[in-house]
């Protein structure tokens, strides 16, 4: 699709990196949605539909789960869930009904969203253009390349960890840890500052890691697609390599979440 129909290279890349937005009039600046009350419709739709389909399927198989010989679907889901559960068991030693479901949700959801990256970059936009009749309709199909999504996840994880820490340790113990660790109560402001930096750094690194990896991967796909016919020998290796990346990123996000939960619920 490179440079066709008067589309320049810059225009092509921009088209692929622009979200479909809706916003209230109050959030418009010069007629463009730039204020806070802007919604990325594509991110919300794709992630929501993928999540509903995947978790709906999982819930359906789980509702028919048997302790006898499992069906193929149940077996597959059990394999994934068992893998995540094993990681939780190895890392998280507290008792919580939330950590394993949280880790499962993160791994599965991030994985399927990342997997959208494996569909050739122009295929879905082309289809959407045909359906809506507007070839220039911007639509990003990989939700994890939207920092809003990754930040939403990491901030949610941050709050869950915070509440878990409060719940498991109790308010006084938690406060003691915030103000008196690691330098003792005399250096309370320093301890507090350390703690704040640590707590803030976690969600930022967590979300930016996923966003950066997926954004860069998507970018490389777009650049490869620009090569025209020569993209063929390049797209395949990058695609294969990307299978590794999307799985790894989903796993890393899940693993770090478990680690944060474990750190929040254990005294150190």
């Amino acid at each position, binding site marked *: 699709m490179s440079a066709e129909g008067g589309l320049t290279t810059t225009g092509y890349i921009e088209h692929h990196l622009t979200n479909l937005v809706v916003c209230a009039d109050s959030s418009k600046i010069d007629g463009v949605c*730039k*204020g*806070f*009350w*802007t*919604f*990325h419709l594509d*991110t*919300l739709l794709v*992630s*929501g539909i993928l*999540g509903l389909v995947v*978790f*709906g399927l*999982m*819930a359906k198989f*789980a*509702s028919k*789960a*048997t*302790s*006898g010989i*499992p069906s193929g679907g*149940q077996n597959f*889901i*059990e394999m994934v*869930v*068992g893998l995540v*559960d094993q990681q939780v068991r190895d890392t998280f030693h507290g008792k919580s*009904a*939330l950590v*394993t*479901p*949280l880790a*499962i*949700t993160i791994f*599965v*959801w991030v994985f399927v969203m990342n997997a959208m990256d494996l569909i050739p970059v122009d295929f879905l936009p082309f289809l959407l253009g045909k359906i809506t009749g507007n070839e220039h309709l911007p639509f990003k199909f990989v939700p994890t390349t*939207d*920092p*809003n*999504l990754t*930040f*939403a*996840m990491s*901030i*949610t994880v941050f709050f869950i960890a915070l509440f878990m820490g409060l719940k498991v340790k109790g308010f006084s113990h938690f406060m003691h840890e915030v103000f008196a660790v690691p330098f003792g109560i005399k250096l309370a402001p320093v301890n507090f500052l350390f703690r704040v930096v640590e707590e803030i750094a976690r969600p930022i690194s967590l979300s930016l890691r996923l966003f950066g990896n997926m954004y860069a991967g998507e970018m490389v796909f777009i650049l490869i697609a620009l090569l025209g016919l020569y993209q063929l020998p390049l797209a395949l290796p990058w695609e294969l390599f990307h299978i590794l990346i999307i799985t790894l990123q989903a796993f890393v996000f899940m693993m770090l979440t478990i680690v944060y939960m474990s750190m929040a619920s254990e005294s150190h």
Partner: protein
Amino acid sequence: MNINATLIGQAIWFGLFIWITMKYVWPPLQKAMADRQVLIADGLAAAERGKHEQELAAKRAADALREAKEKSADLVAQAEKRAQQIVEEAKGTAKVEADKVVAGAKAEIDQEVERAKQVLRERVAELAVAGAEKILRKEINASAHADMLVALKQDL
């Protein structure tokens, strides 16, 4: 990188999916997996037990076989011994019987001989008397010399 209200929407999605997983996905799967683990453990234990029992049974069978063999060997030996005994006994009885028969036959023979001797004695006596009569017809009276004849008969 523009952060906006999408964040809130995504957080809501995320929360919803965590809730679905927590409520509808994980508990039934966890239960099924745990139950299956118990089931498999039980099955393996049962198999182990069965194997053990089978080994025991094989051992018992071997024992029984050996015992039976010993018993049968004993029986055969006993039977042989008994047969020997019976043969010995039969031999003894036959010998006694044979001896009896031989003794009886001997006694009969002796009797026969005695009788024949008696007959012969009488005949000889008669012949002697007849000869003597012929010789002494005239001179000797049989009745007068009866004592002497009887004594002669006794000597023969």
